[in-house]
């Protein structure tokens, strides 16, 4: 290698000594990573089928015939998940913002609002989602509301909004708290009212700061939409349960899992990307 004979190559003349060294280290690291990955995959592929119950498990969970018969129906049912998500997400964002603002009020006249904000976030973050769905989804319509106002879609959505907006509110509040006091001081020194300061100076920055954290919440929401099935709607999780019962086979659950992953993996990757980008910008 002639590069190694040239102690002080100029940048234009080819890779520097350090670049050559680092490329070597990288190649070596890649080889090791590849070899260990292959070893692990091989071990899994060879060892798991050796388990005595593997044939039974394969038949019950990875049954090609059942998969082919049920997958289209699962995709169809998933449309309902997406719809419920689509109308819940904006409501959650708005409610969460409202609650966060309640908690941030400083005027003594609005103290009840602040108290409400604290109680709200404490209660709804402290309850399992499915419990809230049951209580609201069956309880409120049980008061005697006429159709269509007793629909499980309405009250199930409300339950999701209540729980998730409590989380979103906390995330937003941390975002609001993270905006340096000097920003508020700068706005105040210009004669802006507290309201305008919040709306034009603090909130836009706070919301931008918490986008990645909220992305993760909304990915969790996408999964929890399935809990609405407890009060009637036939979304993908319920549809998989129906198929499971009809075929006495768990493969439809695997199908449903694949459909969830097809959506949530890209979403989580994107959230991670945003988070990393933000961390880089801050450092």
């Amino acid at each position, binding site marked *: 290698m002639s590069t190694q004979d040239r102690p002080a190559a100029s940048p234009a003349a080819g890779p520097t000594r350090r670049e050559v060294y680092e490329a070597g280290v990288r190649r070596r690291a890649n080889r090791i990573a590849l070899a260990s990955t292959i070893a692990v995959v091989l071990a899994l592929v060879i060892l798991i089928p050796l388990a005595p119950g593997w044939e039974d498990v394969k038949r019950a969970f990875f049954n090609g015939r059942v998969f082919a018969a049920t997958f289209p129906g699962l995709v169809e049912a998933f449309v309902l998940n997406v719809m419920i998500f689509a109308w819940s997400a904006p409501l959650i964002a708005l409610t969460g913002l409202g609650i966060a603002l309640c908690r941030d009020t400083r005027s003594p006249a609005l103290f009840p609002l602040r108290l409400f904000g604290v109680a709200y976030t404490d209660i709804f973050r402290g309850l399992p989602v499915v419990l809230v769905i049951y209580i609201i989804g069956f309880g409120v319509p049980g008061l005697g509301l006429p159709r269509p106002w007793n629909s499980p879609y309405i009250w199930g959505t409300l339950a999701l909004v209540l729980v998730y907006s409590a989380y979103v509110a906390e995330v937003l509040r941390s975002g609001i708290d993270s905006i340096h006091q*000097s920003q508020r001081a700068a706005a*105040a*020194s210009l004669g*802006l009212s507290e309201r305008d300061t919040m709306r034009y100076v603090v909130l836009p920055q706070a919301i931008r700061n918490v986008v990645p954290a909220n992305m993760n919440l909304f990915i969790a929401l996408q999964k929890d939409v399935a809990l609405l099935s407890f009060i009637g709607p036939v979304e993908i999780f319920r549809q998989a349960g129906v198929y499971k019962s009809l075929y006495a086979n768990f493969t439809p659950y695997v199908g449903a899992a694949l459909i969830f992953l097809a959506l949530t993996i890209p979403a989580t990757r994107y959230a991670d990307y945003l988070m990393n980008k933000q961390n880089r910008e801050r450092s």
Partner: protein
Amino acid sequence: MTAKLSLRGVRKRFGEVEVCKGIDLDVDEGEMVCLIGASGSGKSTLLRCMNLLEPVDDGVILLDGQDISEPGLDPQPVRQKIGIVFQSYNLFPHMSAAENVMLAPRRVYGQSREELRPKLAEMFGRFGLGDRMDHYPDQLSGGQQQRVAIIRALAMAPQIMLFDEITSALDPELVGEVLDVLRDLRGQGMTMVLATHEMGFARELADKVCFLDAGRILEQGPPDALFNAPREDRTKAFLARVL
């Protein structure tokens, strides 16, 4: 003639620490007053008290003879008359330079972007930022950001401008461009109070220099007198350190 801004016996305490221990100061219309003194002597706090960012504990602040320091008084109208520029610029990072400047006039005076824009272009041009109006703060150098912050305060058409060590965070080669802006403002007759470490600048342009020490104005007077013939030992010691 009454002073534009008068402080009488102003006191301010943060917890156990009294930062201003009874300050008396008069700023006349069109005058440029420089506050000098070591870090922690109370310069910044005094400025923040003047436009009510910090409520004073005791004493009075008079603007055109009106007591503006009365507890419970709405501070917003006062702040519109007294602008302040901070050491750390404090631009709004999510807005372009022009939006930073237009926000307060739009929200407080109800002016439209269209009517503000020509005036703004003129100010940006005058301060050498004609091509930077639509840049975001993180695309501007420190000196440029500080000039935008000055324009932002000026856009509210204040009667008095306060400057809180506005060149302290700047690289040395950028200090000059910001001081030029102050020189320009002085030429226009703006009433100004500066907390500063730029002794040369204070000596050249100030009408009055006040030396703050441990929360008190120990000595004040025309720059020539204060810099050339300080009376107090502590003033002498301070000047010996910084000059």
